[in-house]
């Protein structure tokens, strides 16, 4: 009887883990709720926000995405068409939640205004069309 219980427990744990992993494997863009997608950047286009966002990017993001945001060591470029076509709300959602399975941590520990400043900085970067084919997406 104990053996059966043990097997059932292992089976349930395995099934639950598999379900979580399968659910987590979707692209982060599909997970963004409509309300978050529609959010606008309160600091969009402000030069001081772009400048501050550049500093924050250098301190927190450049380690993985490169000083020029073109991606490094197989991590995605942030000058890609995909990022350019994402809304500010979608990028804000990604910064807040991360994409843990793909290696992108949550940056919720940064104050929300600072996260918006980073997005303002990303919007100021020139687009690199070749980036989409070169490296994987987050």
């Amino acid at each position, binding site marked *: 009887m104990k053996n059966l219980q043990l097997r059932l427990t292992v089976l349930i744990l395995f099934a639950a883990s598999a379900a*979580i992993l399968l659910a987590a494997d979707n692209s982060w863009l599909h997970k963004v709720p409509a309300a978050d997608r529609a959010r606008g950047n309160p600091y969009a286009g402000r030069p001081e926000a772009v400048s501050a966002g550049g500093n924050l990017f250098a301190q927190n993001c450049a*380690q993985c995405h490169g000083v020029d945001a073109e991606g490094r060591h197989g991590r995605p470029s942030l000058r890609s068409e995909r990022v350019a076509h994402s809304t500010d709300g979608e990028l804000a959602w990604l910064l807040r*939640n991360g994409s*843990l*399975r793909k290696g992108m941590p949550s940056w919720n520990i940064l104050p929300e205004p600072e996260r918006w*400043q980073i997005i303002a900085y990303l919007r100021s970067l020139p687009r690199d069309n070749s980036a989409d084919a070169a490296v994987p997406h987050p």
Partner: protein
Amino acid sequence: MAQPMRSLSALQRFYSRKPLNTRHNPLLRRCLCSIDARSLFSTCLLLAAVACATANMARAQEPPYFVTYSEALEEPGNLEIAQKGLTGEPKNSNAFYSATFELEYGAKAWWTTELYLQGQATAGDSTIFTGFRWENRFRILPSEHWINPVLYLEYEDVNGADKSVLEVTGHDSIADLQGRNADGRGDVSRTMEGKLLLSSNPKGWNISENWITEKNMMGGAWEFGYAVGASRPLAMLGNGRDCTFCRQNFSAGAEIYGGLATVHDFGFQDTSHYAGPTLYFNMPHGPTLGFSPQFGLSSDSAGVLWRVKASYEIQQFRDLFRSKEAR
């Protein structure tokens, strides 16, 4: 991990036993003199300095807590090197300084692993290595929620002379800080510790609550403890200028923690509790420095514990081990 643990146990046993008679063996005496607790920490600090010199550094992004844990994990691939210091002068005992050397590594975006090496020096007594801890933190949910849970699992191998007070559980009290090193170092305990870390970030604040459960594998009852912290950066907006002493580089808060006795006598009876303000200074492209005076709240607590912390985050430490082609 098993091999380093065995090595560390051997190291701890080495420090825990009685001194060898080296009077007639100058070579042995020279060797033993060169391996004391201070040189162990000096070596660790030297290794840290070498690693820092060869890698990018950055400020650590974490709320200003010394005991409480938040949801913040180490970024994957980053290595944080930290030194946590604690000093105090318990009633009827000598002043002490406890040093904890930490190596915290982001294994995954959802998993952080950390090794602690601990020692302490007590005035009029001695300087000793007191043990090690290996902790792992796992983020349970894949996305952010109003409350974010993180699971914490730790193995401790420390002796009775440990004065790090990295957490308070069970009936931990001022008596643990008053003993002589010679009496405590032979009393080695191997403990499993679990924590449920809950953390929220409403309107720029961080509020974290920890529930601590501890069990000595060598016997004894389940012990419990708690830690609660709240903090906030002094400014919510980044600055376009590359300034060192801007308000956004500082974060302040407060924390309170203490023991909740054991499974047999759960409650506040004969337990110690501390509370105090905390302050972190995140130097841009440099270390994070922290300071906190923490005040005893019960008759079983020490009067005041002074905590300091210095940490460096080496960005993408794992890239140092990749070939140039892979980079």
